[in-house]
């Protein structure tokens, strides 16, 4: 709610657009979408920002960002009927990218807000950072951290070893199936999944839109990604 722009927050051609959007950014009152839109535009894309399930289902690709708490995010998604739309979009086989909270609520549940039932697109949950007594680390995990990518995935290709990305989060994804983990980062002795992918879904815990050239590379990869059916 708080980030809702006054007046029209739509691209100029919103009213005249007839064909389906190439890229839709999901707007569900969970934070600031400006940076994601700016980064996509910088890469030559012309995204729409929408909260309409029909526009999401019509899009060729969907970016699902977000900051804040899992509980409030899920509440907004349900209220706007975007939870079903996102699941349906995923089932269509078209490329879906989750960012930050969008990388958490794709799991079955979150520890946040006293336990939150989430979308359940991927099996697993999210957990809060906890450190053994001797380890003093600040929460949220905020700043630049190295992500080590494992294996070959089109969305994470061409990223040099040792590259760092910008994080802001207190919870981290814990997938049930280790095969979905495509990149990990380490904080206070906890190694966690920072990038996951399954089928036509890719998701990153870091803010790829704020992660400089490496982050833009992930977005660029996503824009040309053709997931195998």
């Amino acid at each position, binding site marked *: 709610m708080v980030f809702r722009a006054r007046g029209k927050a739509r691209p100029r051609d919103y009213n005249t657009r007839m064909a389906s959007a190439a890229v839709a950014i999901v707007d569900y009152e969970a934070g600031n979408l400006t940076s994601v839109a700016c980064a996509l535009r910088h890469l030559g894309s012309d995204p729409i920002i929408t909260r309409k399930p029909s526009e999401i289902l019509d899009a060729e690709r969907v970016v699902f960002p977000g900051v804040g708490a899992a509980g409030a995010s899920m509440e907004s998604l349900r209220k706007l009927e975007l939870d079903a739309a996102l699941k349906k979009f995923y089932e269509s086989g078209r490329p879906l990218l989750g960012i930050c909270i969008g990388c958490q609520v794709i799991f079955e549940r979150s520890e946040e807000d006293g336990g939150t039932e989430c979308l359940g697109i991927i099996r697993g949950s999210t957990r809060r950072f906890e450190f053994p007594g001797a380890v003093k680390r*600040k929460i949220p995990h905020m700043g630049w951290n190295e992500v080590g990518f494992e294996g070959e995935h089109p969305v994470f290709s061409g990223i040099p070893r040792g590259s760092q990305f910008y994080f*802001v989060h207190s919870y981290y994804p814990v997938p049930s199936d280790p095969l979905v983990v495509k990149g990990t980062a380490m904080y206070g002795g906890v190694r966690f999944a920072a990038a996951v992918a399954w089928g036509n879904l890719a998701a990153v815990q870091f803010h790829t839109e704020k992660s400089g050239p490496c982050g833009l590379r992930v977005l660029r990869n996503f824009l040309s990604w053709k997931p195998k059916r």
Partner: protein
Amino acid sequence: MLSKRVIVCLDVRAGKTTKGVRFQGNIDVGDPVVMGEKYYLEGADEIVFYDITASAEGRPIDIEMVRQVARRIFIPFSVGGGIRSLEDMREVLLAGAEKVSVNSLAVRDPRIIAEGARAFGRQCIVLGMDVLRVGPRSSVPSGYEVVVKGGRERTGLDALEWARRAEDLGAGEICLNSIDADGTKEGYELTITSRMADSAGIPVIASGGAGTPEHLRAVLVEGKADAALIASMVHFGEHTIAGIKEFLASKGVRVRLDRTET
């Protein structure tokens, strides 16, 4: 493991960046959007746009400038100096800034920290504070007093107590600027920085006094700061971000060295 951040501060006046020595005698050093992009491409981890005249003259923040910055740099940037209300914060964040910084406004009305954190998330709210070394006394036990208006007005607030209170209210980060060191290029104020970094549960950005890469190393290691703010060191071409970061890395300080071509 998190990297230590190197943050470039651009003081903006009438649409141009300036760098003053102890807040006086500002000289122009260029277009803030162009400068911001240059530092982004050179590997800065974050950029601060500080509209130093906005609050002094009661002018609103230049939102169009923030929008232009958001279209050209893809790392976090913050805006400070002219934030007067929750509505100002919202405008700046919606224009694409990652964070807003409040300083004298928070001293006048600390509730803005709590309201901003509640509305936008605490990671968006940076408490900026200018501190002056006054020596320990009963009202200022740490010996460092918070000052406003570029150091012209003292507040009676103890720097460490103010930091604790701001953190309790919901500040996500503290930018600690030493008035004594600011503009001197003789190094950061290590004493208050390390004390604040030790006691705070949120990141502390050290500001004021950077002249050499060694000054950054000292404040990030001995001073225990999470990030170091620099300005004139790079504005006048004496040092580059890449050079500073390579020096820090060579001394064992963990920093982000970008390896990709744009």
